[in-house]
C-alpha cells in the first residue's frame, strides 16, 4: 500500500477518477460511460505527443520541444493534401507524416547541437518555419481525409475507441523503452547529470538526437491521426497541444527538471485534463471561472504528486 502511495503517477489517476465521479454525481450517472469513451479518444491524442515530450523533458533542465503544434500542422496538412481522400494513398500519407516529423526533429536537433541554440529558442523559432511551410503548402484549405482512415480513427471495439487501444499499446512500448532499454536508462541518466552520464559511457549526443527526432515523429503521427479524426488539417489544429503536451507530462508525475519519468502517469493526466474541462462545462461554469479552476486544480495535482515523490 505505501509502495503504491509513492507512485508518482497515482495522483493523476486519482485526479481523473475524482473529476469523473464528480461529473457523474452531478448528472446522476447519466452518460458517464460515454464521457469516459470520449475521454479515451481525446486523451489518446494527448498521450501520443506527451510521450515524445516526456522523453525530451527528461533529458534535463532546458530541454523541451515547442515545435510540436507546428509539426502536427505541417505533417497533417501535407499528408491530407497528398492523399487527397484516396484510400490507396493512406500508407503513403502515413509515411510522409512520419518522415516530416523525423525531418522536423533533425532540424531541431541540428539547431540545438550545431548552432548551440538553447532548445526552447531553437524549437520555438523553427516552429515559425514549419508553420509557414504549412501555410505555403496549402494556404489553410481543409482537405478531407480518406474515408477509411477517418473510420479507423473513430472506430470502437466493444465500446472502447480503437485509437485508444492503439495508443495504450504505444504507451506500453514507451514504458518498456524508458525502463528496460539502454536508450531509456540513458535518457534518465542524462537528465540527472549529463556530465556523469557522459563519464559513465552514455552516448549523450546520440541519445539527445534520437529523443528530439522521436518526439517530432510522434507529433507528426498525432497530426496525421488528428486531421483524419477531425475531418481535415487546419492551420491552428495543433495550438492547444503546446501547453497540454507539457502539462500532461508534468501532471503525470514526470519531473520538469528532468531525470525522472514515468509513462502510466501520461494516460492518467491526459484523461484528467479532458475530464476536468468536461466537468466544468457540465457544471455550467463561465469561461473565467473555468480557466481559474483549471489552473488551481492543475497546481493542486502537481503539488500532491511532487509531495508523494518527496516521500521516497
Amino acid at each position: 500500500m505505501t509502495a503504491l502511495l509513492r507512485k508518482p503517477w497515482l495522483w493523476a489517476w486519482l485526479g481523473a477518477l475524482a473529476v469523473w465521479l464528480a461529473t457523474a454525481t452531478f448528472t446522476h450517472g447519466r452518460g458517464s460511460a460515454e464521457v469516459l469513451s470520449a475521454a479515451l479518444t481525446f486523451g489518446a491524442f494527448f498521450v501520443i505527443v506527451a510521450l515524445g515530450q516526456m522523453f525530451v523533458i527528461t533529458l534535463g533542465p532546458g530541454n523541451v520541444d515547442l515545435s510540436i503544434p507546428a509539426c502536427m500542422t505541417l505533417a497533417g496538412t501535407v499528408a491530407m493534401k497528398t492523399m487527397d481522400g484516396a484510400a490507396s494513398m493512406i500508407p503513403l500519407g502515413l509515411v510522409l507524416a512520419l518522415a516530416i516529423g523525423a525531418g522536423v526533429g533533425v532540424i531541431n536537433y541540428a539547431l540545438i547541437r550545431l548552432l548551440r541554440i538553447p532548445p526552447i529558442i531553437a524549437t520555438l523559432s523553427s516552429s515559425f518555419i514549419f508553420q509557414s511551410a504549412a501555410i505555403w503548402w496549402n494556404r489553410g484549405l481543409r482537405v478531407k481525409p480518406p474515408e477509411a482512415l477517418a473510420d479507423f480513427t473513430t472506430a470502437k471495439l466493444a465500446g472502447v475507441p480503437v485509437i485508444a487501444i492503439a495508443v495504450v499499446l504505444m504507451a506500453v512500448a514507451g514504458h518498456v523503452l524508458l525502463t528496460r532499454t539502454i536508450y531509456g536508462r540513458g535518457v534518465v541518466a542524462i537528465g540527472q547529470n549529463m556530465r556523469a552520464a557522459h563519464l559513465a559511457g552514455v552516448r549523450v549526443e546520440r541519445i539527445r538526437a534520437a529523443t528530439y527526432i522521436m518526439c517530432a515523429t510522434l507529433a507528426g503521427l498525432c497530426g496525421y491521426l488528428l486531421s483524419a479524426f477531425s475531418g481535415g488539417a487546419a492551420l491552428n489544429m495543433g495550438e492547444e497541444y503546446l501547453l497540454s503536451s507539457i502539462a500532461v507530462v508534468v501532471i503525470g508525475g514526470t519531473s520538469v527538471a528532468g531525470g525522472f519519468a514515468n509513462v502510466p502517469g501520461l494516460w492518467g493526466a491526459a484523461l484528467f485534463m479532458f475530464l476536468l474541462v468536461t466537468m466544468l462545462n457540465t457544471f455550467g461554469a463561465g469561461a473565467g471561472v473555468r480557466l481559474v479552476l483549471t489552473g488551481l486544480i492543475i497546481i493542486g495535482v502537481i503539488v500532491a504528486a511532487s509531495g508523494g515523490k518527496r516521500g521516497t
Partner: protein
Amino acid sequence: MNAPGRAILLASTVVGGLIGQAALADTSDKRIALSNNYAGNSWRQAMLRSWEKVTGQAVADGVVAAADAFTTAENQVTEQAAQIQNLILQGYDAIVINAASPEGLNGAVAEACGAGVVVVSFDGIVTEPCAWRIAVDFKQMGKDEVLYLADQLPEGGNLLEIRGLAGVFVDDEISAGIHEGVAETGKFEIVGSVHGNWAQDVAQKAVAGILPSLPDDIVGVVTQGGDGYGAAQAFNATNRDMPIIVMGNRHDELTWWKEQKDANGYETMSVSIAPGVSTLAFWVAQQILDGAEVPKDLTVPFLRIDQDNLEENLANTEAGGVANVEYTLEDAQAVIAGAK
C-alpha cells in the same frame, strides 16, 4: 452583333473609361498598406488572398499606386504597433488595419492620423476616434441565429451553445446576441455551453465531452462559425437525433449540410462574415483618399446562406475554404451611402 448594339457597347466603354479616369486622377499616386495581425487560419488566408486579388487588379488598373499587405508573426499588440509606425515612416497614404486589440493600438493609430495617414479598421476594429471602423454587428448575428431557430422550431426546446475563444469581444458579442434572442423568443433554454475556439477539432472535443450529460432532446445548436462540422461529428458519434446546427459558411460545413439535405431533407442556415471584407476596407480607404465624405462607422453586411441558395454558394466556395464575396468600388459606395 448589329450596329446599334455595338454603339451602345462602345458608349458604355467610353463611360466606363471616364469613371476609371476620374478615380485615376485622384488616387493613382496613393499608396495603401494592409496591417494584419494574424494569418494562422483559413479565414485569414482567404482574407489575404481576396486582398491580393482585388488590390492587385486595382494597382494594375492604376486606381492606386500600391496596396501592400503586411502580417505580424506573433499576433501581439506591441508588434503591430511597431509595424504601424514603420508603415507611417514608409509614407503610406492610408493604412487598412485588422487589429490585434480594440484599444491597444490607439497610440500608434493616433500617430498615423497625426502624420496625415488615413486609417481604416475592419473586422478587428480600433476605438481611436480618428480612425474609420468597418464593424460587424456580431450581436445581431447571434440574434439572427435564434430567430431562425424560432421560425423553424415553433415548439422551442433545448439548445446547445458553442462559443468562440474566451476573453475575445467577438465571442461576448455573439453570445450576448444569442442570449438576447433566447430571452425575446421565450421558448428556448440553453442547457449547455462550451468553448470551441472557432476551431473544428476543439469544438468536436468540447461537444463530445458535454453531450452525454445533456438531455436527449437537444433541438438546436447555436454556433459562432468554424465549429458546426465539429458539432455534427460529435452528434454523429452518439445515437442522438441530429439537431439543427447553425453553420458558419466553411466549406466542410456546407458540404455536410448538402449531404444531409440530399439524404434526408435536413434544413439549417449558415451565417458569417465574408473574408473579402478586407477588399471592402480597401475601397473605403480609396474613397476617403479620393475625397469622398465617409462616416466614421460603417457596418459590414453578413454573408448568409439559406436552404434555397446553398448549392449556388457551395459551388462558389473553394474546396476547404470559406464562402466568400469580394467587394467592388460600387459595393463600398453603397455601404457608405447606406451609413449616411
